[in-house]
């Protein structure tokens, strides 16, 4: 293998300027750096936990599709993860001489701001949206704003502003559009194929050069903290003040960010974000689309990875249950050695996964349901958007010609210490006719599969009952006895 070049500084662009930093703590956040070091105080801090969106900035990165800008939460984004990126803050927005930027003028005229504290964050989320879509639909606006809280205005004015942006100016005249070529060239120039290593002893960070380099680094540093999108790890730092050094940033690694389908199996690299996976997954496995739309807010989906969601091992992570129901397999890699296991066996116990020191999650392989197979996933939360799951159920059903259950896989989140299959329920359904009676009978088995807990999201009794009702809902939908259950603006779950 070619010798890897090592660089002891990170390079990126902040608004118009090149930034080179040789002293970066592994846990330094982009928000603190902007506000404290750079005195760019337009970006606000409302929570430091990724919940409010006041800290929203755009991060542009070079990808297969060229230069792509995405909204992110600066409060949980680590500075070290920005090597080779373009960071854009609210201060970078400009209109034509003497005018506000179209996004900003629309927000002023439609009264999208009261106290104004959330406003720069909303402006950046809307800006990110407008760059992708000049005439966004209601649904697109809703998605773009999921991760921004406003306690004052009631949102409606902001939504109306979002619709009006294009009437205030042309996208081609926008600063980022005008600079696009130049920025792309500057970012290209930053790509030197080097590994970044900064700091020593207690405060170290590493950005591997590519996936193979990552494998080497991790073998040498089995105790390192792997940081992908940092939507979990960010909170370890800002909320729990945990030490993450040495940190290995794998957010944008060559070889880890691909998603491809082969023979009916979609392989998703561990560095693929929710946003990047969305178009493939929602096309090939439509039921996953609405679920992905309800994971975090847009900023979280732009950063967070499916690999991280799995590796984190939380019992309320939203992707493991549907992937388990679909029969997904997981590839783990240590150095050059790889092994591939059924996803469900990865989750051993609460906080314990089948991962060796120095080993990492490389990819997850998801079979696309065959024609005739029925798949559904339901997420129940108190608040519709940006809320952690109270209970989540995923179902994959294959019926035989005679209408009996030929195969069924059911997995839940929020019901046990790990994402878990409802094996007893599955067994009670298998081979039986797919009827309400069968389903009713199988329900008794839930008590053997799960002993849910009470917490602030839901009581044990609620979870037990909701889990059963989800099966019933799945039955109703697959047997066509009631209108399909849709996750849309006006639905209830």
């Amino acid at each position, binding site marked *: 293998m070619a010798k890897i070049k090592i660089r002891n500084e990170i390079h990126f662009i902040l608004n118009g300027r090149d930034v080179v930093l040789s002293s970066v703590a592994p846990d330094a956040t982009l928000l603190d750096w902007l506000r404290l070091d750079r005195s760019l105080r337009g970006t*606000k801090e409302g929570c430091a936990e990724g919940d409010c969106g006041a800290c929203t900035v755009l991060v542009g990165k070079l990808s297969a599709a060229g230069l792509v800008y995405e909204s992110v939460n600066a409060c949980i984004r680590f500075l070290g993860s920005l090597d080779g990126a373009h960071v854009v803050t609210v201060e970078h927005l400009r209109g034509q001489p003497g005018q*506000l930027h179209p996004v900003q003028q629309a927000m002023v005229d439609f009264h999208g701001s009261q106290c104004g504290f959330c406003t*720069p964050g909303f402006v950046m989320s809307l800006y990110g949206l407008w760059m992708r879509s000049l005439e966004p639909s209601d649904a697109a606006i809703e998605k773009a704003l999921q991760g921004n809280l406003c*306690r*004052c205005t009631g949102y*409606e004015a902001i939504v109306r502003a979002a619709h009006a942006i294009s009437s205030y100016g042309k996208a081609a005249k926008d600063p980022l559009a005008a600079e696009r070529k130049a920025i792309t060239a500057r970012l290209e120039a930053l790509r030197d194929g080097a590994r970044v290593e900064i700091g020593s002893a207690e405060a170290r960070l590493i950005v591997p050069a590519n996936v193979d380099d990552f494998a080497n680094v991790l073998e040498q540093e089995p105790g390192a903290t792997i940081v992908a999108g940092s939507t979990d790890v960010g909170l370890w730092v800002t909320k729990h003040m945990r030490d993450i050094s040495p940190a290995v940033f794998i957010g944008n690694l060559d070889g880890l960010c691909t998603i491809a389908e082969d023979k009916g199996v979609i392989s998703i690299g561990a560095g693929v974000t929710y946003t990047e996976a969305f178009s493939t997954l929602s096309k090939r496995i439509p039921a996953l689309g609405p679920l992905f739309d309800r994971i975090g807010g847009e900023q979280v989906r732009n950063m967070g990875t499916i690999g991280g969601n799995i590796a984190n091992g939380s019992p309320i992570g939203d992707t493991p249950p549907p992937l388990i129901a679909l029969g997904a397999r997981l590839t783990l890699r240590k150095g050059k050695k790889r092994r591939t296991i059924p996803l469900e066996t990865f989750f051993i116990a609460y906080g314990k996964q089948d991962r060796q020191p120095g080993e990492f999650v490389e990819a997850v392989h998801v079979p696309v349901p065959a024609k005739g197979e029925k798949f559904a996933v339901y997420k129940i939360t*108190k608040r519709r958007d940006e809320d952690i799951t109270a209970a989540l159920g995923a179902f994959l059903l294959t019926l035989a010609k005679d209408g009996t259950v030929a195969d069924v896989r059911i997995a839940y989140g929020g019901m046990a210490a790990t994402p878990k299959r409802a094996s007893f329920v599955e067994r009670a359904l298998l081979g039986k006719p797919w009827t309400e009676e069968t389903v009713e009978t199988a329900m008794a088995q839930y008590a053997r599969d799960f002993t849910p807990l009470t917490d602030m999201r839901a009581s044990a009794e609620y979870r037990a009952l909701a889990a059963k009702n989800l099966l019933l809902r799945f039955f109703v939908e697959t047997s066509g006895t009631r209108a399909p259950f849709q996750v849309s603006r006006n639905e209830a779950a």
Partner: protein
Amino acid sequence: MTVHNIRVGESKRGDASDGTLAEAVGGRLSRVDGPAKITGAAKYAVEQQLEGLAYAVLVESTIASGKVRAIDTASAEASPGVLRVLTPDTIISLRTASDWLGTTPPDKPYCPLARDITFSGQHVAAVVAETFEQAVAAAALVNVSYDETPSIVDLSDGKAGDGIAIDAMTKEWGDAPAAFAAAPVRICAAYNTPREYQAPMEPHGLIARWEGDRLTVWEPSQWLDGMARTYAEWFEVPFENVRLVSPYIGGGFGSKALALSHGAVAASAAKMIGRPVKLVMTRPQTFTGYGGRAATRQTVTIGADRDGVIQSIVHRGVNETSIDGMWVEPLGSVTSIMYATPNFSSKQNVVRVNSVVPGAMRAPGENPSAFGIESAIDELAYEVGIDPLEIRLRNYAEQDPHAKKAWSTRQLREAFAAGAERFGWSRRSPKPRSMRDGNQLIGWGVAAGTYPVRRAYGEAVVRILADGSVEVESSSIDMGQGTYTILAQTAAETLGVPADDVVVKLGDSRFARAGVSGGSRLAGVMTGAVHKAATSALDQLVGLAISDPRSPFHALQANTLVVANGRIGSPRGDGPDVSIAELLKSVGRDRIEATGDTMPANSTAEDRYKNYTTIAMALPHTEGDYSRYSWCAHFIEVRVDEDFGTVRVSRVVSALDSGRLYNPKLAESQWKGGIIMGIGQALLEEGIMDRRHGRIVNNNLADYLVPTNADIPDIEVISVGIPDPHSSALGGKGVGELGIVGVAPAIANAVFHATGKRVRDLPITLEKLI
């Protein structure tokens, strides 16, 4: 450096769809501070950059009740960058300050760091360091040991008891118990609301700097003069020595009106180290650093005849307060005035629990009170089989049933009519569970709301400058409600200048004094003061133009002149026509300045001080011949998925009477903001306690759920107000708090209509419905 200049001309004017000029009072002028906020240029209080700034971080108690046994600060002190560790033993001694009524405080020292712990999250120590990170790291090394005693977690704690009777809350007329006993129809139910939190997007914090015995505090504040008074008393310096600066406030909702213990800690630290100190609460700390809305319990019994006409209301309420503080959430406030009843009794207790002392949160009192009575009357409607809207009209109070005075204005009947019409209420099928769409049960509910008109005296300075532009100065504030904008409109209209030419300066206690921005009083008070100041400036201007020998109008011998669009001319248009700037130049003046003050003529300096730094001089809303309130009616549709108990609000139509609106665009935004906070209150918001440790568990924005965009349906607001001359100089009534009142009961009523389940315990979460 910190003065705030807001020029109207930087933003587009706004629309004038109703024909009113956008800039005039009543016009839909766009927020003048919009551009600053939208570009990120608006500087919030703690964003000041000062030389030599040090950072303080609080250490909070981890027990809810007991005593601090010892605080070991050795490792924190040895930690890099640490300048000082403050404990109850090492912090400088302060004096106890008066409360917001101005009550003379006990003559004893005040220590903002606690030895005796009465709630979890109480400040026990603070670390000051060169950088924020260093302070955070060192704070984690402060080792506090405690002697813990059992705590009272909340109202449902067995040890909580019945509490203390607050006699001042008792309201009675007729013989309510007897009339209830005799009534053919009787309903009786208990209604509970949980702890709720203001959760403004900007966390609390401040920068404090001493220069000799002068203190400057940059702090988000709803009341600069009130807070300055507290700081002055704590540190025993003259009131004039304290300057509060608060140009923008990132939301308050009641929580930023008073100087709090974290402020005392920061200002003490600044004094002790001789450097400016910044202290900002973390989001979790904001849940215990000040009080949210107190949890409440009410029983409402209504006796009525078979036609649903109320004969008697008996109401008993309880709210929680802290172990050593007193907060009364007036639970009988709406109960006693919403409906006509010949017999009435309301009494209230407060119960001490181990919590931070609760505080004001959007419509304190009226909000939970309305949840009780507006749910109860709905229950009565079903009991007697009358439409919930009809029963409200049948019991309409033609005058204030408690004060026995005429309403100044009460457009509630109009609100019911306008809201019902727009909502399509007549198409409602009366039976619960009778409206459905696929898996979803649909319910329609109605409830009314109200908020008293709080009035006080105000002061403002209006200056006409040499270039003809106008400056308005006041130490009042704008936390988003639109003070900058409406004061520009008021000055522009009164003086006859374009709003573009008006600069409004707020948020600095060096400016003309102002009372609290709370209780929805500021707009009414301040437009009155600016109107008065501007009128007097205009009189001076016209006086000069007429009488100064150098004036081009001198020869005209007119007794008055008109000023319009920044120009002066004679009423008949037959004389000269000059700009204000030209006139000032001709008479050799570089400015005209007037202070407007709506205080009674014989007021003393002491009266003024009291008026601006306490709420003791506020005028009762039932003063004189009238009872003054704003009113609203909410019509709400919900959709409930019965299998999972999930509720979505799918439609809201609200008709509101806030009197005359100074700027409908701003008012509508306030109302809608109140309504969505009401949706949060109804469905999501609740402080959840860890009963073992007596501490709040959902102290962050992931778990304390406030509404997101997707929770909010189409909201339509309709203004049904008419100018109310008894409520304010320009005819407006309160706007900011009104919108939230009645939303939660309207939703609970809609949920009942959808499901047949009556939820009397907020919030209406999934598990309460399956």
